[in-house]
């Protein structure tokens, strides 16, 4: 195998003096100072995530007011952080099974999106929600009341998922 060696870089006389090189650097930073700033002033100016963004996982609520979830428990099983708890029960609907209890512990959640990937019903998806602030531990456990989000609201993500299947 050919071995290529890099000779030690030797400084020229002017480089050894440091000062001219430093002045070059200062010219660069001066130019930077005058450029447009990249900062986004967050609370006033909010970032709208692209559909590929993995925010808080939510449950899709169909137009007829029924959740898609059939409480199969695959999300709970695949969740590497054990953030999801599901308790199934029987309903009179055509899909005979529904989640009586569906809880995601947002402090355990690592937003990996495995639940979304494994879901056979496309019922749990990663929403664009990224603002989650809690002051008590209990508040971080989202039940169905907080998790259900209408299919319209989640349309961009659902569209994204379909186009990348």
């Amino acid at each position, binding site marked *: 195998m050919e071995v290529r060696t890099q000779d030690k870089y030797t400084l020229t006389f002017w480089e050894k003096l440091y000062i001219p090189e430093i002045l070059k650097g200062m010219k660069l930073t001066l130019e930077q100072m005058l450029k447009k700033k990249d900062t986004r002033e967050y609370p006033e100016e909010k970032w709208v995530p692209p559909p590929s963004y993995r925010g808080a996982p939510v449950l899709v609520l169909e137009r007829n007011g029924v959740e898609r979830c*059939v*409480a*199969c*428990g*695959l999300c*709970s*099983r695949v969740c590497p952080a*054990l953030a999801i*708890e599901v308790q*199934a*029960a*029987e309903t009179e609907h055509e*899909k*005979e*099974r529904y989640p009586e209890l569906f*809880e995601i*512990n947002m402090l*355990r959640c690592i937003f990996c999106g495995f639940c979304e990937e494994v879901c*056979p*019903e496309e019922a749990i998806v990663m929403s664009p929600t990224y603002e989650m602030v809690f002051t008590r*531990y209990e508040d971080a*456990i989202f039940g169905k009341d907080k998790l259900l989000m209408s299919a319209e609201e989640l349309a961009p993500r659902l569209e994204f998922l379909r186009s990348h299947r």
Partner: protein
Amino acid sequence: MITITIDGKEIQTEPSKTIIEAAFEHGIYVPHFCWHPALSISGNCRMCLVEVEKMPKQVIACSTRCMDGMVVHVNSEKAVQAREAVMEFILINHPLDCPICDEAGECKLQDYAYHYSVGESRFDEEKGLKRKRVALGPRVLFDAERCISCSRCIRFCEDLAGYPELTFVERGDHVTIETFPGRQLENPYSMNVIDICPVGALTSRDFRFKARAWDMSETPGVCPGCARGCSMDMWVRQNEILRLTPRENQEVNNFWMCDRGRLESFRHVHEETRIEQPMLRKDGVQLAVGWDEALAAAASELRSWKGDTVAVIASPYDTCEDNFLAARFAREILTTQFLDILPHVEAGDQDEFLLREDKTPNSAGARIAGVTPVDDAHNLDSIVEGLQSGKIKAVVVSDVRAHEHAGFMQALGKAQFVVAIVSNASALTERADVVLSASTFAEKLGTFLNFEGQLQLLRPAVNTTENERWMGAFAMSRLDKFASEFDRWGRMKRYDARSAGRVFSLLAQLMGGKWGYDHPEDIFEEMAKRIEALHGLTYEGLGRWGVRLGSEQPGHLLPYKYSDVRP
């Protein structure tokens, strides 16, 4: 004896055996749906197709008998192709509703779809629509779409349970299962069809949608429903038993279990009547107290009633170890000979299959452990008489169902001091002066002896405050392993209960006894030394299926363990 070759392995077998039997006997797995070693041969699923050299077509292993010199290939290209074709056929009309199916995770079809199927279907048409959620009986629901028409359930009811209730109706892709007109699937063994159903077509109404198979831990145990003592598995999630399923034990129950044992025998573990901690009667009112206080109160009171003014009613629901210590406590500490158990017999509720009249799991065990009256003057009748006449003044009862005996309860009313070591509240605990909360069969280690003399090991599945769910010591589900104190599903309901044996041991120590045991295994070791029938036995020696005491050994249905042969 003839010699056949299966997958290159030469096997000595008999011409009366089928290929699949010969294969299973020698640890070779052949995929199958309709064949079951305990049922008659039906041969309608075609899954067990194997290639036999010199035969023009692949044959089904379940109904082809062995012939000398036969060369069978289970995994040759032809056999694999045949299986893949069968799988494709079966899956044509099988709905893709695994997410809502209770069988998911323990489904033969699901497993085979991974192992023996190509993974895609060439079938573009609509799947057949059939009836769903059909109540075949009070305990079993039927989903016709999921059914693959293997007829295992029909054969079980007809051949084994002896209740012909199910049959096929219609033909072709319309074929489905129905009960005979005017009948229901309601025989006392009906729920076994759920276990043998290779798909989720038959599901338990009781367990329906309660939990996923993979969320529960599975602990081998012994059914406490009757003197048969069926081997079963306890399925626990969040420290609660959700269901029992029979476990293969050819020396006791083969693959089966009665509906009553399956549904009712564990209810008291989580019932509202469960006593959560010791109670002590103070000025006529029962107050919840700590163990130390309750034990001290019981011991100091019992100390004044020594001799034949005290009686001990041990429990046929408790383990042999518990009863052994109950007997030692009565004889050595209380120095009384009044010691017996209460019978719990439901006359007539018995058959040749599994059910026994004696509804206690361990009457035989209690007897062998030493709870035997020395003579007729000290048996149960004498105890009741003694109570009536006021000769016996104090009683220690550990039978959780003592309240079912009206005569005994009435006599108990005359006693001056009653100690109850039971798990659930009843008329007995209302009467008791000291109630010591005992653990149930699901919470302790010990042995049960069935009416035939099979001694089986009982393992804890549910934990109490005394009995922590350690890694290794318990069967643990994923949830048990990783729960933190902050997870609601990790904060499990636990009762402050101790096994009756432990309670007797503690009482004995408080009353000057020189013996005490920390672990049931120590007690069993002592029993094995003292009791002739148990000589040489250890917990380890009991294994998965137990040991038959006495000279008569049980006959086995099969020369192998069906559940041990795996792909």
